[in-house]
């Protein structure tokens, strides 16, 4: 035994001394191995941290640990909404109460949140519409006999504002005509604008205000291009259960949707991106880039573009200015710019063409002095928003919902994917989606009674309508009522306006249709088993339940870290294959230089395995020593980063980091993995050289003569 130890000692001695004797080879090979180990530690640690951060924010936002939906659905569920507007391929689950009781019977399930996902295109009113609407209110009040001085003043101011808008539009339309020379179309528009801007038009306005208003509403309002389609994706849910279950959800402005009330919450991201005045939004972006990320306008293309956009697109602001505001803006801007220019448009353009020196002061000035006179958001908190959506049978359905506030998911605030989910109560969602609710059913019954409509089954609808032409027998009036048709009728009834704050019976939330449900578990490590249990429980209860992990339910986002991991491991693999080839070559060269020495050892009586052990030992020693150095350096860097954090340079990184800074943590498995890979590569790369060395004949020790 001691002899074996002694032999090992001599093997180790030879091996180590050889490493020192060939310092450069050792350093090169070791350097590669050390770098590889460093990379593995850094890469896997960062990825784990990103994975952890993302999973926390996705699970804690909307996905939950598990998503449950109907197994009869044609498509896979994507709670982050994917890229598609269409969420219809998820089959509804008709009774949430039953689904919930089945889910809650699974031991690991802690909470179930009902959901439905859909999207709508909503036209937000433009400034012209808003100004005209206000004017119409005053006109109505006047015709109803209100002759107060206050109303007279308001009425005059409102007329002024509309005139101001028209003069802005007039300049605009002429410019467009000059640019495009689209005679037919532009001439028509130009004529309308010219008429609306004429003194004569306004002189006769008071004689027939309604007629004039109608002209403005029909011919002028469409010319104002600041009306935007709001594409709103929303989740219909039980707002209070949602807020309780998802710890990442925070109310940013306003309040949560009160229990039992219909309502809408904007995602803060959508509210800022789509609803806010573009100029203000641009200024915000520049401000954020400068203060948080230390960017410079002059050095950053994106910021340069934003500033240019803000300074050239002042029309949106001008449209909001009536006569008194125009005057106010003129004096304020002249003051701050030390200018005698009287055109507010030019003043604004000059004010907004900022640079790195004056940006912060102008930004502050904008919010302090100008913003109070502007409508910063096209939809204000407390307004009622008309959401129009397609029901699953294709009809347009609408609901008026009060906007209670805005909310954000912590960590996902900046994500164009996850941050765009708005929220409404589940009852309104069901209506918009075309499901029968109690209120609706009653309403339809009332409409039917008054209009004398008879029920027609879908199969017979055509013959009912065109029966005579077809010559087919008319359908029996007493045909069984079809649930589908009821749904469609409810869609037709959508023109009926309802109060945005209309309450509903909280029981309705529990008992109706849902599209999917988020499940939060007690023990995350058992998520896989719980998924299986849920599907089994569904089968037993006769419910077509399909359960998927949050990674699957979050679509692309959920798969992202897996994708990154594949990329990382591929990179690591490539690095180590290259390392393997280099190390292998270096060792083969080294072996060939040692033919005489190895031959001598063999001649003197060393067995082949002695040679093998010697070479493998050399490789492993280099691998372990340099691998350990790389691992320690990597671990040190991660520890350092874990303390100071890595700043997210842009919105994309903000999303992956789930916040402004990522604090990576080191897991022992990262270190073990690095060392294991390093050892593996060391051993594998020494196999071929060792094989060559083993083949070296003891004859090599002798003088070659023959």
């Amino acid at each position: 035994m001691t002899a074996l130890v002694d032999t090992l000692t001599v093997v180790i001695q030879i091996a180590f001394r050889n490493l020192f004797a060939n310092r450069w080879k050792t350093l090169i090979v070791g350097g590669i191995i050390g770098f590889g180990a460093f990379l593995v530690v850094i890469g896997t640690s960062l990825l784990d941290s990103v994975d952890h951060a993302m999973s926390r924010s996705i699970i804690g936002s909307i996905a939950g640990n598990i998503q449950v939906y109907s197994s009869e659905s044609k498509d896979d569920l994507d709670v982050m909404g994917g890229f598609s507007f269409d969420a219809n391929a998820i089959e509804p689950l008709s009774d949430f109460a039953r689904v919930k009781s089945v889910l809650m019977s699974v031991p690991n399930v802690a909470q179930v949140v009902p959901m439905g996902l859909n999207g709508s295109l909503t036209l937000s009113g433009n400034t012209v519409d808003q100004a005209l609407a206000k004017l119409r209110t005053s006109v109505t009040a006047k015709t109803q006999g209100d002759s107060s001085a206050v109303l007279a003043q308001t009425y005059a101011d409102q007329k002024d504002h509309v005139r101001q808008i028209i003069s802005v539009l007039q300049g605009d339309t002429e410019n467009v005509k000059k640019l495009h020379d689209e005679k037919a179309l532009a001439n028509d528009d130009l004529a309308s604008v010219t008429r609306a801007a004429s003194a004569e038009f306004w002189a006769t306005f008071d004689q027939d205000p309604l007629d004039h208003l109608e002209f403005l509403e029909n011919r002028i309002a469409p010319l104002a291009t600041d009306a935007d389609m709001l594409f709103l994706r929303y989740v219909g849910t039980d707002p209070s259960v949602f807020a309780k279950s998802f710890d990442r959800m925070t109310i940013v402005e306003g309040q949560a949707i009160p229990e039992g009330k219909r309502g809408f919450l904007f995602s803060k991201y959508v509210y800022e991106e789509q609803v806010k005045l573009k100029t203000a939004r641009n200024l915000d972006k520049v401000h954020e880039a400068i203060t948080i990320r230390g960017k410079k306008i002059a050095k950053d293309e994106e910021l340069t573009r934003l500033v240019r956009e803000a300074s050239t697109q002042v029309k949106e602001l001008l449209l909001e200015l009536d006569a008194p505001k125009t005057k106010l803006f003129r004096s304020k801007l002249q003051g701050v710019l030390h200018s005698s220019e009287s055109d507010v448009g030019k003043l604004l353009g000059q004010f907004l063409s900022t640079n790195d020196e004056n940006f912060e002061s102008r930004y502050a000035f904008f919010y302090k002095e100008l913003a109070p006179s502007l409508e910063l958001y096209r939809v204000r908190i407390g307004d009622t928003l008309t959401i129009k959506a397609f029901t699953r049978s294709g009809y347009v359905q609408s609901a008026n919902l009060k906007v209670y506030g805005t909310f954000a998911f912590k960590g996902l605030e900046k994500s164009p994917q996850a941050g765009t989910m708005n929220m409404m109560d589940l009852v309104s969602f069901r209506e918009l989606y075309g499901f029968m609710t109690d209120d609706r059913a009653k309403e339809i019954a009332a409409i039917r009674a008054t209009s004398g409509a008879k029920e027609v089954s879908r199969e017979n609808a055509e013959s009912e309508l065109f029966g005579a032409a077809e010559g087919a027998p008319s359908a029996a009036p007493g045909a069984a009522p079809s649930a589908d048709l009821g749904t469609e009728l409810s869609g037709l009834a959508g023109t009926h306006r309802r109060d945005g704050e209309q309450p509903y019976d909280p029981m309705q939330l529990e008992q109706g249709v849902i599209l999917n449900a988020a499940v939060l578990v007690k023990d995350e490590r058992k998520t896989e088993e719980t998924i299986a249990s849920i599907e089994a429980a569904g089968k037993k209860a006769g419910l077509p339940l399909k359960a998927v992990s949050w990674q699957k339910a979050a679509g692309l986002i959920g798969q992202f870290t897996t994708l990154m991991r594949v990329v990382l491991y591929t990179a690591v693999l490539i690095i180590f294959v290259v390392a393997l080839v280099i190390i292998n070559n270096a060792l083969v060269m080294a072996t060939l230089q040692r033919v005489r020495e190895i031959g001598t050892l063999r001649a003197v009586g060393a067995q082949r395995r002695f040679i093998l052990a010697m070479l493998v030992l050399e490789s492993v020693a280099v691998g372990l020593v340099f691998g350990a150095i790389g691992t320690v350096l990597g671990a040190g860097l991660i520890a350092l980063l874990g303390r100071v954090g890595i700043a997210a340079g842009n919105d994309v990184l903000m999303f992956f980091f789930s916040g402004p800074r990522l604090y990576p943590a080191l897991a022992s498995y990262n270190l073990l993995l690095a060392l294991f890979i390093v050892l593996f590569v060391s051993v594998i790369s020494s196999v071929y050289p060792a094989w060559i060395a083993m083949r070296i004949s003891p004859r090599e020790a002798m003088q070659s003569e023959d």
Partner: protein
Amino acid sequence: MTAIVSIKNATKDYRLGKVVVPALRGVTLEVSQGEFLSIAGPSGSGKTTLLNLIGCVDTPTTGTVEVAGRSTAKLSERELTRLRLDTIGFIFQSFNLVGVLDVYRNVELPLLLQHTLSAAERSKRVLALLERVGLGDHARHRPNELSGGQRQRVAIARALVTRPVLVLADEPTANLDSVTGQNILDLMKELNRTEKTTFIFSTHDARVMAHASSLIRLADGKLAESGTSGPSSHEAAESGLGAMP
């Protein structure tokens, strides 16, 4: 006298691409214990090939080679290695010390490979041998700190440390100046006398041949001459070949 080495009609062919080069064309030879045998011959005559066969680093194409009573053709690679370790000591023209090990470790190496002696026994034997070859003070030196002659003494110590019955020396003095070569040869001769170790060495140096108790000459892979030369009066090798005129 017992025959340490017994070679019968040994031939050895080497392949050089498609050409078969015969290096030995049938050699029969017996070496008895205690001999100090010189194998002489010009380059290409087959000296090294013959030494390789005797040293068990190669096996004959036809014929038999018996070393210490064992026929090498029947032995596996491992057994041949073990046979070399236990019964043969090697001295090379270029000394072939392990450069990264000190003198002591170089000499100890075969003992470590043998796994038979304790550390104390090894130390005693190594130090005694180093004393014997006149390098008692150089145990901790590295080979590159030694002169050529000193290195060859280390190599001799290494060859003798396992107390082999046979020491093979391949042109042991070729890389040394004549005085140093003479000293080395004297040392080998003395060890041959006192330890009764059989020495077989190849050389083409006439002065070296003069020391041999027996001499065989090789030419074109065949024995050209064998006989007794020099002052020692050993018997001539019992070869079946005719003596020189």
